[in-house]
């Protein structure tokens, strides 16, 4: 277990440094890192501190958030298909964020944007839990997710199409697919408090989720208060997914792929899967963001495109397996 933690740690660290070293201007890795730490005059420290650092930090924060939220939702629903992007939670968060931006709430009140996204994500999680609670099957969960995703996407498009700003309508793809391009430290500070609170909340769920693997009755017999667990799950997921979506759009499949790959390595224990998925998610988003910049640097390729290319085949595989298990 310690070996896995160390390995994931090293992976995240290496990808973080690579993320700082890659950019359109050929700043040498050593020169760039020295400028990042030591500062100084000229454009290099400015580029490192104001452009590349926030991008790398957001990659870690958003990846960890999505991985953690995916692992927690899957643990609670005992369903490997639960993922914030697929079940519409990210989409609902994007709708909240777009509403805050277009109504001017985000401009008048600094925390308006993340709070609105959080409210959207929270409403999404609650809807999904109501529609496909712990006793609902995979099919119910996926159907509920499809409906919520479609509704959130349609309303987001509607709000952006109604905007007086001619650029707004062209941003539909950003809100659906996500991107870390040209984010700043402002976005890091905006998202960090909500994410940190959500991480702490979700991390406390480990013991309860472990007990839940034995069934709800057994978990309650072991002293797990299910209503409290559900409340923390909703709030924690809403906080991390809401904050991530508010600054980088909806990035799908991270919470699906990462827990799936790591589950066998942690002995299928939900409490261990939580921290492992957080680190694995950070690595995946950093790697996807690196690929975006290396493969088509001129095109502002969206992050969600890459995560979907990796994640969708896996999703199909999981559905196929689920189908095989059903009578």
């Amino acid at each position, binding site marked *: 277990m310690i070996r896995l933690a160390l390995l994931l740690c090293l992976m995240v660290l290496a990808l973080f440094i690579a993320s700082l070293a890659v950019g359109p201007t050929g700043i040498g890795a050593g020169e760039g890192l020295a400028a990042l730490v030591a500062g100084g005059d000229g454009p290099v420290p400015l580029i490192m501190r104001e452009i590349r650092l926030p991008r790398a930090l957001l990659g870690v924060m958003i990846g960890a958030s999505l991985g953690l939220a995916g692992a927690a939702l899957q643990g609670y629903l005992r369903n490997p298909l639960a993922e914030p992007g697929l079940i519409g939670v990210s989409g609902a968060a994007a709708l909240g964020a777009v509403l805050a931006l277009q109504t001017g709430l985000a401009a008048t009140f600094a925390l308006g944007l993340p709070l609105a996204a959080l409210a959207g994500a929270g409403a999404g999680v609650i809807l999904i839990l109501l529609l496909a609670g712990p006793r609902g099957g995979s099919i119910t969960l996926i159907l509920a997710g499809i409906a919520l995703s479609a509704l959130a996407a349609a309303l987001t498009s509607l709000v952006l199409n109604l905007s007086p*700003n001619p650029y707004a309508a062209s941003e539909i793809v950003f809100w659906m697919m996500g991107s870390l391009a040209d984010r700043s430290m402002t976005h890091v500070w905006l998202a960090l408090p909500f994410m940190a609170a959500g991480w702490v909340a979700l991390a406390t769920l480990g013991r309860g989720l472990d007990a839940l693997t034995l069934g709800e009755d057994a978990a309650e017999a072991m002293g797990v208060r299910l209503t409290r667990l559900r409340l923390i799950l909703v709030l924690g997921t809403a906080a991390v997914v809401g904050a991530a979506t508010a600054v980088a759009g909806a990035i799908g499949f991270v919470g699906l792929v990462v827990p799936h790959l790591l589950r066998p390595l942690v002995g299928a224990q939900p409490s261990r899967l939580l921290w492992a998925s957080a680190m694995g998610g950070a690595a995946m988003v950093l790697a996807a963001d690196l690929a975006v910049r290396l493969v088509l640097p001129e095109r502002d390729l969206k992050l969600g495109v890459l995560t979907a290319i990796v994640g969708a085949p896996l999703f199909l595989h999981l559905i196929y397996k689920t189908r095989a298990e059903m009578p």
Partner: protein
Amino acid sequence: MWGFVRRFRVITLGVALAVAGASAMADPAPARVVSINLCTDQLAMLLAAPGQLISVSDLAADPESSAMAEEARAFPVNHARAEEVYLLRPDLVLAGRYTARATVAVLRRVGLTVAEFDTANSLSDTRDRIAQMATLLGREAEGAALIARFDADLAALQATPGDAPRAALYHPNGYTLGAGTLADDILRVGGFANVAADLGRRGGGTLPLETLVMADPDLLISATPLPGASRSEEVLVHPALEDLRAGHAALRITSPDWICGTPHLLGAVERLVEVRHSLSEVGQ
């Protein structure tokens, strides 16, 4: 090389005018003209006889895009949709070469005459477009007068001599305009070198914020924010860009004067000449 190109252009323009002139003699000037493109809207408003132009596109009346929004209010607007254009029973439809392609195709199928205008990519293209519009509308004399006035006004705008400071155009989504664009030519005539063109960019495209900061331009020209919120415009207030603005001259522009090849682009040139002048005064 350039001398040759220019001469060649003049010759082709001459041939085009001769051919168009011959056909204009055969057909009377169109009596009902509808324009469905922002740039042809403005050229037509400048040149058409009273009553000849019966509709312009909705963009022509939008002050965020059009340099002639005020004048456009006198005309009924269309939205470049085939059905409404057809119902106006035009003799001639004016369209851009690259916009509303589907509309143009349908209008031609139902037998309307559609004249397409190429995008003006330089000040000399602008003169050609004015001549093209004048010929189509049967207003050659007005066209020649407008070109003469354009030339005289341009000659009066002399940029401060000396080394050209380096200017960068930076629009929402990090969009910039490189060599071979109208904006590039406007910058050159206004006495500035275009950073994007120096970086080897041709045409329009995005410039990474990092590359812009590294290029360290003397003048940063960016669009004025539009009403309503958009993520595309967020990059214009990025802390790294604010740092750049703090160290150098910055100019906020509204785009109408920069978009179309019409005499209104001289307004943009005039602003640049003023900024260039004040920069060299600071330099001294």
